[in-house]
């Protein structure tokens, strides 16, 4: 199937997200679309997949002009898209996701569909359980499910948006093998949207580059990496540099810390981090990296305090029973006893744990910052001692949507007075914008800044005295250039003895910037002593639990 774009333009007000893009996609080829954030890759793919309609221009399929008004029309024409965060229904099973959006009779015909599902899975070499809930599946499995679903609907032109973010190395290999087979044996067309050059080189036959909405380059692979970088950015980038920093005395010491994550729990966790050291946390999502950082940052108390609310509510209830029903002793006793029983049940595990620790059957968790214990300190307390956590959801958790850059500066500076010195704050914001090269003004609402600039603000707001900074996927959604800027700012902080702990799904990032790597895999933690000596492939195997 040949798909041709003719002068595709998409305008959002004055912004030209796509500007007169023309290209012809051929059969049996794998294309890569490269570009910085905001270059217009996603918009173009959304137009191709029917999610958005172009302002001007037309799309031809096998020389016939078509109107792709909705995604389902696009699928009928054989064009399907796998979104970066697969668009599926989390509380439904894989089978229900597979069935939904499919035409047919009134009833679901589960049995026939299971057979159909297995048939298509086998063809692609995927091993998926139709009765598993999607929320319990990994991102890689959810991608496989979407691919199976799209191909079973007759899709011959498959678009994948950043598919290698958040999946394991093993899943990536499997995905790439499948895509190569689909393109080269079944002569389908595959389009990969990515900013990871290594992935592009490994998988694709041809590469297109977009810059500021325009198609600026087209090369047949293999071509030199420098050429691709040049197409993306229009200039050459210096490779990331790491100056060696002398690591000093230990800042963080963790002993026997239990971690409870979504997928796996780690019974005991030990780590010692030195001044100026960078520790990378690798592993699949939900293996405990984020929970570990939360615990260290005091955002997740290690044991029973999360049930305090429940216990408090029950105690209130108990008092209500006791006060209100003094006319009726029967009900009072019944209510009191049931409330007490519930309190007992909710506190049973922590009490048992406490007794076991006292008897020496279970080691006592110890978290120390600069030789002082911080096991039960809250985030506020830790912040004062120089511990900061930056979440990956910048706008959701890290920054406050709706507030300006200046407001954020005012929020983070404490002058010990109940009022704000706006003039001082304005100067400070101005200075931060200059130091960190933020593209924005003090009075811009934070959500109007691009992702890279938002992250620069987050990093710029880090306090002066910083002992330990914990970062969850610090360069999520950032292009190479922005990511390197963030890292150069972060690495500079090491000179004052700050330790850095970060997690990332991008193995290259982990190897490039870490001194040591902790690999979280199925409830086990492996320490890689020298990050410079390990390859991506080996690290991927460690994550997959092979070694």
């Amino acid at each position, binding site marked *: 199937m040949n798909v041709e774009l003719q002068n595709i333009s998409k305008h959002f007000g004055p912004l030209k997200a796509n500007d007169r893009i023309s290209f012809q996609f051929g059969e049996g080829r794998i294309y890569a679309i490269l570009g910085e954030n905001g270059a217009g890759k996603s918009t173009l793919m*959304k137009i191709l997949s029917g*999610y*958005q309609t172009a302002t001007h221009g037309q799309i031809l399929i096998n020389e016939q002009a078509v109107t792709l008004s*909705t*995604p*389902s029309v696009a*699928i009928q024409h054989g064009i399907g*898209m796998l*979104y970066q965060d697969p*668009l*599926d*229904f*989390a*509380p*439904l099973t894989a089978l*229900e996701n597979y*069935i*939904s*959006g499919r035409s*047919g*009779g*009134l*009833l*679901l015909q589960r049995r026939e569909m299971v057979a159909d599902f297995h048939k298509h899975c086998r063809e692609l070499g995927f091993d998926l359980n139709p009765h598993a809930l999607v929320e319990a599946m990994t991102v890689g499995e959810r991608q496989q499910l979407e691919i199976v679903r799209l191909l079973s609907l007759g899709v011959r032109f498959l678009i994948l948006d950043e598919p290698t973010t958040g999946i394991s190395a093993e899943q990536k290999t499997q995905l790439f093998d499948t895509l190569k087979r689909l393109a080269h044996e079944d002569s389908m067309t595959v389009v990969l949207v990515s900013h990871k050059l290594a992935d592009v080189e490994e998988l694709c036959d041809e590469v297109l580059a977009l810059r500021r909405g325009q198609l600026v380059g087209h090369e047949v692979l293999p071509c030199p990496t420098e050429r691709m970088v040049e197409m993306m950015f229009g200039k050459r980038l210096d490779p990331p540099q790491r100056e060696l920093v002398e690591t000093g005395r230990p800042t963080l010491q963790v002993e026997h810390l239990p971690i409870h994550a979504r997928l796996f729990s780690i019974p005991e966790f030990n780590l010692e981090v030195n001044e100026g050291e960078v520790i990378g946390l690798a592993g699949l999502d939900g293996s405990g990296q984020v929970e570990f950082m939360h615990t260290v940052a005091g955002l997740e108390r290690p044991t029973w305090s*999360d*049930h305090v*609310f*429940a216990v408090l*509510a*029950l105690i209130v*209830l108990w008092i209500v029973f006791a006060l*209100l*029903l003094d*006319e*009726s002793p*029967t*009900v009072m006793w019944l209510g009191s006893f049931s409330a007490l029983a*519930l309190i007992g*049940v*909710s506190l*049973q*595990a922590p009490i048992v744990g406490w007794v076991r620790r006292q008897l020496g059957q279970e080691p006592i968790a110890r978290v120390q910052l600069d030789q002082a214990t911080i096991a039960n300190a809250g985030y506020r307390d830790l912040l004062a001692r120089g511990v900061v956590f930056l979440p990956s959801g910048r706008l959701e958790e890290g920054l406050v949507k709706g507030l300006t850059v200046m407001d954020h500066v005012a929020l983070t500076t404490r002058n010990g007075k109940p009022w704000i010195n706006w003039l001082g704050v304005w100067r400070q914001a101005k200075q931060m914008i200059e130091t960190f090269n933020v593209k924005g003004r003090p009075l811009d609402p934070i959500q109007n800044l691009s992702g890279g600039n938002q992250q620069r603000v987050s990093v710029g707001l880090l306090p002066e005295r910083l002992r330990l900074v914990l970062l969850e996927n610090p360069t999520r959604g950032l292009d190479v250039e922005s990511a390197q800027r963030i890292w150069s700012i972060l690495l500079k902080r090491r000179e004052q003895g700050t330790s850095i702990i970060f997690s990332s799904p991008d193995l290259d990032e982990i190897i490039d910037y870490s001194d040591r790597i902790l690999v979280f895999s199925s409830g086990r933690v492996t320490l890689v002593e020298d990050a410079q000596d390990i390859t991506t492939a080996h690290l991927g195997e460690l994550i997959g639990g092979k070694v």
Partner: protein
Amino acid sequence: MDPVLISTFADIVRNAAPLLIASQGELITERAGVVNLSLDGTILLSAMAAFAVTLTTGSLVLGISVAVVVGMVVALIVISSSVFLKLDQIAVGFILTLLCADLSTFLGRDYANRAGKEIPYAPIPILKDIKFLGIGEIFFQHNVLIYFSLFLIVFMGFWLYHTRFGLQLRGLGERPQAAYVRGVRVQFWRFVYVAIGGGLVGLAGATYSLSVRLGWKENLTLGNGWIALAIVIFGAWRPYRIAFGAYLIVGLRALALYLQKEQLLDLPVQIINMTPWVLMLLTLIFVSSGLAERTLVLVPEKWRPAAQRFLRANPPAALGTNFEKS
């Protein structure tokens, strides 16, 4: 079985009917991703409308139809203001609840405390004579609306989990973007489901004034709309659990009345009226504090996934949000 017990159960089935219909209606609405908080006011207004129309025209069918239309109109105001004016569904619903309640008092002042028609008693032949456990008397000696409430439980359970439309509805409130990508006309179906849900809420109002509480007076339904809303949460957005919740609450009231009459329990009736709220609170604490997860350990390994599915109570993820493409 004891005849007193049987007639008590029959009463429970009858008195729970409007609560059931209203909460199943709200279930449809919320599964589509829309919160219709106007339930309490809508029920009052439609109860008044049903009674007034029946009294003036003498036609029960017309009265019921008007009640359904009233419910639909109010629900459509909620979704229209959300879709077209980008207003907050909760705020609009809350205002509408107050407005409808006052409107029912005002418009219904000429009809208050008057004798009117009742939906005819229509026992189902053959089935009504089942003596086993009193089934005949409990379930099959009522009127059409009560039968409808029973039918609705089974229908909703089947429809939501075993048909394509049900699957589509579950997706709609969970992740409308994903539904859109699968070719579902999100806004259109939201309007349809919200109208159906609102219609059922209107029908619940008619059930009050034409059958269960017979007649019209100010605040006839005594805040039962709020209880229906609470039952949807208690029922974790699932038809059978919602039915269980509705029967539980009506059953508790019947029990309290019985105990009071027999002087077995020395407590004021207000306490019983508080039970639904206490139950909701306990359920929420139980489910969201992790207590439920901890209790799961007691369940044998084999049954754990099923138990987990039963215990979990996550609202539809897109509940109360407006659908936008990107």
